[in-house]
């Protein structure tokens, strides 16, 4: 078998290889106007109303981690993908792929967590599916979630809509989820525990949309982190994005863990953060709305959209120099020395 023609783990990292796979293998073959926008949720009209529709699979290991579990993650991830379209999430499906041998007690914990998260997000689980596979054919539990939401009139939010002059804001600190998972998976006992930020953000988005109809882009920076998501937006909108390192919040414990492992927090996954790109005249209003919500209380303006260097993200470093921030390449791996 020619190994260069096989799928690598890095194809699932959320970085450049994932993008290539999606663009060439899926979008290339299945393209239509909606899919080709490559937004986290597809928006389309149905019987006069506008709907948002999304799907995602959750394969996190371990399935329980500080700050959440795979069930909470599945609900929040799908709710947040709908929220990035400005949609009010309404209905979710849940499909479980369960590895033989999973304790029922663990499954019950996950289901309870799903119940709590869907209750907080105000969504109903309306359909589902269950498959059990032989031991070793799955890693304990995989969940696929699809979600449907309603897009209010006048809302047009997409990664394609960033315009030069727009303000880039972030709802809080980055890297919490990725480092919590890493710490749990690898058994690092940090003195200050690192917790996942896993949370449903639709409530915060509703508040933001009440404050302004001039929100052009919303995106939750999950796999690949802030850097990869901003690169995606820069490419989708064909604009440059300038960000300021000193304005990007990183919790001390997360920063220290990243230092230890040689990771850049810009590339570490989040599950409860939102990037908003907003017309400059409404930036303060949206920022204030974000901060009124507990999940956005540490929101800050981190940069702006520019007409120069289209498709590129540029970081002003803490020392005042400027450098390119590229997408994640391959898997996030610890340094060797």
């Amino acid at each position: 078998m020619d190994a260069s023609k096989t799928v690598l783990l890095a194809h699932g990292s959320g970085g450049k290889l994932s993008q290539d796979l999606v663009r060439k293998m899926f979008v290339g073959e299945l393209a239509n106007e909606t899919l080709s926008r490559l937004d986290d949720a597809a928006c389309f009209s149905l019987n006069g109303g506008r709907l948002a529709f999304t799907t995602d699979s959750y394969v996190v290991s371990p399935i329980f981690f500080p700050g959440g579990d795979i069930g909470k993650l599945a609900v929040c991830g799908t709710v947040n993908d709908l929220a990035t379209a400005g949609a009010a999430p309404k209905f979710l499906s849940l499909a479980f792929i369960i590895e033989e041998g999973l304790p029922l007690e663990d499954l019950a914990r996950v289901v309870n967590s799903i119940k709590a998260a869907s209750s907080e997000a105000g969504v109903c689980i309306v359909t589902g599916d269950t498959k059990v596979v032989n031991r070793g054919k799955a890693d304990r539990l995989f969940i696929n979630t699809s979600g449907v939401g309603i897009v209010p009139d006048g809302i047009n939010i997409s990664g394609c809509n960033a315009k030069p002059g727009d303000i880039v804001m972030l709802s809080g600190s980055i890297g919490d989820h990725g480092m919590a998972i890493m710490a749990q998976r690898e058994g690092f006992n940090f003195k200050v525990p690192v917790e996942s930020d896993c949370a449903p953000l639709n409530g915060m988005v509703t508040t933001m949309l009440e404050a302004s109809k001039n929100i052009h882009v919303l995106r939750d920076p999950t796999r690949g982190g802030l850097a990869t998501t901003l690169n995606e937006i820069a490419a989708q909108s064909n604009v440059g994005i300038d960000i300021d390192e000193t304005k990007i919040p990183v919790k001390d414990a997360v920063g220290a863990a990243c230092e230890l492992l040689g990771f850049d927090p810009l590339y570490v996954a989040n599950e409860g953060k939102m990037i908003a790109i907003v017309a400059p005249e409404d930036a303060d209003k949206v920022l204030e709305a974000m901060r009124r919500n507990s999940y956005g209380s540490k929101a800050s303006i981190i940069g702006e959209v520019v007409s120069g260097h289209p498709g590129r993200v540029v970081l002003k470093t803490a020392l005042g120099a400027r450098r390119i921030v590229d997408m994640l390449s391959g898997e996030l791996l610890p340094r060797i020395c």
Partner: protein
Amino acid sequence: MKFATEFRDSALAKKLLDGIRRKSTRPANIMEFCGGHTVAIFRYGLRDLLPPHLKLLSGPGCPVCVTSTADLDKVMALARIPGVTITTFGDLIKVPASYGSLDRARAAGADVRTVYSTLDALDIARNNPGKKVVFVGIGFETTAPTVAAAILQADAEKLQNFSVISLHKVTPPVTRALLDAGEVKIQGIICPGHVSAIIGADAWYFIPGRYGIACAVSGFEPLDILHCVDMIIDQIESGAPRVQTAYSRAVRAEGNPQALAMLDRVFEVAPADWRGVGSIPESGLAIREEFAAHDAEKVFEIKLEREPREPAGCLCGEVIRAVKTPEDCKLFRKACTPENPVGPCMVSSEGSCAAYYHFAEAIG
């Protein structure tokens, strides 16, 4: 983040930069030996902040990049042996050997696992008695003591299914080899921080002593590096090169005696092949005969199916020697990208080509 943010203070950085600009009167090439420094220099944009007559050159200090293709081929051959589990630190998994890489071997069915420490590799061996677990020992004096500790632990536990392929390298001999070759005129060297924490700052006395070149040991924060450059400029301007330490919180003159003793207990110096440089005497660490049961080279009959093959057009060897920069390479950004790397310098998180690729593209 205590002990890190203090070393990224922009006001202090400006003060150091002002001092460097004021004092530095003559052009100088300053080589950072270590890939960790290369990445920090790019990450904080330090090249753009220094006066243009001071050039920072990237040296050979990435253990992944300096590993020869023939040695990587040995690792690939091990991965093909039925029942063998390869355990390795992250970066190595993507580095192309002559015919393939570990991540592609894994996709094709080989058992290849990324670990975060040698302790993880030991755990895999304990939990999989039916597997022969090989840890790929790549690194400088920084990581070699932890590998020595793993071998001692495996030996104490009589863990028969754990071995190491030692591709470790020691750094002073390659520094001497580069300076002897004289391909690049160097006026200052930023000595490696983590390596020096083990071997001690005194190990670098030959740089000013034999070659008359300024040097200082640096940590990996921007202020460490600027402080180090400031020391080197003082030495250059005064014409009095010596060894200084801008990383005194981690580095002592004599190094870490416990780590050095452990290295000596498990390893003996041996010749090593360096990519782009060739074989250098006494620059490698071979596992002592006493621990042959944990030496993969002795446990397995490693057969290379084909002659090692260097990738055509790849300038990694020249980049490692600071003779060329990544941008001199015709493959850079075209045939060679982080997704499809041709040479190791594009793969490793500490590789010069990866640093140039991710950080140094002109901002249009």
